[in-house]
């Protein structure tokens, strides 16, 4: 979801984006991702767009307002978890994730 936050993307670019963002530590596998994409589309978090007309094989997705809400909500939940972790001294205070 985060990968889609700044615009529409297709599957391959999501994989690459996630790989870059995590410094190569998280590698999404195509099958898993596409399954998730379909589920998220079914739940109405993302929506398929017309996309790039030059590459008709590609399916482009973007966040729906609802998906954005879910992404924000999930981020807040994670943030609060991190806060708890910091309070328990599991993570050094002040360090950005």
């Amino acid at each position: 979801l985060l990968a889609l936050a700044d615009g529409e993307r297709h599957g391959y670019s999501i994989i690459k984006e996630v790989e870059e963002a995590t410094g190569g530590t998280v590698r999404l596998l195509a099958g898993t991702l596409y399954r998730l994409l379909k589920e998220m589309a079914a739940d109405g978090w993302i929506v398929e767009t017309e996309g790039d007309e030059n590459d008709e094989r590609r399916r482009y997705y973007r966040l729906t307002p609802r998906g954005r809400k879910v992404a924000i909500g999930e981020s807040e939940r994670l943030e609060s978890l991190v806060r708890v972790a910091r309070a328990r001294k599991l993570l050094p205070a002040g360090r950005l994730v």
Partner: protein
Amino acid sequence: MMRGMHPLLRAALLVCPAEFRRHWAGELSADLDRRRAAPLPLGSTCLNIAWTGVRLHVENVWRDVSYAVRILAKAPVFVVVAVLTITLAIAANVTAFSILKGILLDPLPYAHGDRLAFISRTTHGADETNIDYPDTVDFGNRGRAFSEIAVEAPAHATLSGNGGPVEISGWYVGGDYFRVFGVRAELGRLLSPSDMGTRRIVISDELWRQRFDSSADVLGRRITLSGRTYSVAGVAPAHLLSPGPGFMAESDYWIPIEPRSANFRGNNAFYAIGRLRDGVTFAQAQADLSRIMAQIVRKFPNGNPQRGVLVRPLVDTLTAPTRMLIVMLYAAAILVLLIAAANIMNLQLVRAAAREREIIVRSALGATKKRLAVQLAAEVGLLSTGALLAAVALTWFCLNAISGFFARLGDQYGMRMIVPGWEHVRLNAPVLVYAVILTLLFTAIVPALPAYMRGANLAALLSAGGRTAGVERRAFARAFLATCELALAFAVVCVGALLFQSFAHMERTPVGFVERNVYAVGVDLPNTRRYFGYPALERFYARAESAFREVPGVADAAEALVAGLGSQSNTDYSLRHGLGVKTARPEAEQTVEYNCVTPRFFSTVEIPLLRGRLFAATDTSASQPVAIVSQSFAAANFGGMNNAIGKYVSVGESTGATFPLRRIVGVVGDVRHFLGDPPRAEVYLPFSQVTVPGEIVVRTNGDDPHLANDLTAALAKIDPTLAPPQIVSFLEMRSINELMTKIGAIIFFTLAAIALLLALAGVYGVVAYSAERRTHEFGVRISLGAHTSTIAGAVIREALVLGGIGVAIGTILAALAARGLTQMLYQTSPLDPAAFIGAAFLLALAVLLATCVPMLRAMRVQPATALRYE
């Protein structure tokens, strides 16, 4: 879309559901395109896609199943009816299959059992089952077809020592006996040709455990059987069954055939089972033995010139009494299964109608026809799985009940014969596989029709709000299914009625003697001097007869060689028309039933004297040999009863030995030895002239619970060393005799009941649904003044049309089935009108019963409610 794709990716995508594949194929092939800058790693990606495919499938199934559970939970009545229907159908079918498989399909419990042949003698081409020993020796020596021939004759004896005397049963056997069946001794050795003429014995594993504590030093021990001493050669393997015509018997011992009966040509006391040489067919063996039999007939012209030989697979002989019944049982179970399938389809259609809106909405939302079919399959699959578990439990229960029934029968009558192959009948892996396959079929075929029917134009359905051609088509399909059910049910009920009719005829057939309060008392006499030969035996039986007559409650007692249904002894006979006429060739020579009886036998079992006189005390071993013949014998040989008196007959195993000419002094009524067989020609010989050990027949004045004790005590007074007598009532002998017919009738009765019940449910479904759809119409008619009886008539008419068509088709089906049944019917035509009319009446009753509730409901329709309906 899949073209130009990497084969690994293509394979991985094939694992995935079609929808996923269509959606992502283009994307994935672009991702993996090697021409681009940084393609995804091929191997791990494809593996991941395949794994995703599997997960998606599992999720789909799970979703369908949980959806099905939710749907079914909303319709508990439907679930109960459906599960019950499938359970009954599958249980009936699996039970029938396990019996069919165990008895007819599984191999015999001997090494290469399919190479074993039963060899029997024939007269005029009719099978006599038994054969004489010298013939089998000739078959073995001169024939090329068999490597070994086993010869056996049933034996009974009293085992004394090692505890009190007990009655045991076993076999006289020839030297090759155990080699034919390919069995090895559990201890010591089995009998071989060199043991012939010796007093060696092989005992059963069971006897060894019970009477000899499984001790190894039993070998060489001397044991006493009915006064004769035998030395133990070995112990037979556990559960060794000896085959006979139509039965398998558990036995206690095996001893060599006595030389005096072995060398006696014409003593047809033996069963013969041969092992075919490699490469020899049954037909070749038949030709080989027929050739030898023709030589024997030429060499011994005094014997029965009509005799021949019959070779057939042992398994055919063993299963002959049950084969037809089992095949019919399985066929009927298949019919019940079809009825159940029609019922389930019908139920599904009713539900489809109820769920029309749901299905229309789902179709409109993009659910494919296949998807809907899968959904329905999930529902039926769930029902079937529940039913499968219930059916397996029910089958287990049924098989146990039948086994228990046989076991009780065995205990009750001291019978050790079992239905051949019954030991294979159990709920084993192949039977379970069969049950599962049946269930799968039920899930695959049954939902197909409703889904097909749904192919109707959805838009039309939506716009018309349900009243469309699709609905009409469905109503027709349901009426058609119900008619099929009725037709099939009618066929099963008809066959059941025919068998029942046949059984009733058999029950009513006069046997020619009284059976109520008559008992056959078997006494095993030791082979000692005390009971050897004519005067000793006659003395014993005379004392026993008068001692039994003294027992309180006993009306009469007599001695006979054979007595009661199911027992017989036959021999050859020849006729002479006047004393002193020395014809070289007998004028007629055939097989006849014979019985050796004391004078009071006829009055004891109430066989009427028709002409001449009965035996008297004046008929002794020193006086003129006499005989009494049956009415059939007189009619067949002398053209009537009056001509028979004063004629001469020679009875006995005619080949070789000479037997005296007997003057016929009386003619008595016919008797039957087997229910279902016509009375046979019979000759009675006076016990005083032909003294052979037999049974004492006792008639009492009424039921006497102390009879067995009193008779045993009376016998002990004569000789305390005798084992207690075996007492079997004539009625018990009758019930054994009619057992197969009875079991057949019971089984078909049960199946017919199930079939009727299912058809009843089917008709109910159709009529109830149709009546409900016509609620509106009925309401209008009632408000316009129609009488309730008119409404009831409208409902009933529909049901009767279904019933009428069902009966018409069913009659044709039943007539076809009954043709195959002719063999099993006794004095009942396969088209017996009483059976057909009775079945039609039952079916009509079921149809009316099914109509009752919808009819009453239709009659109570309130016009106001009806108009608001829909």
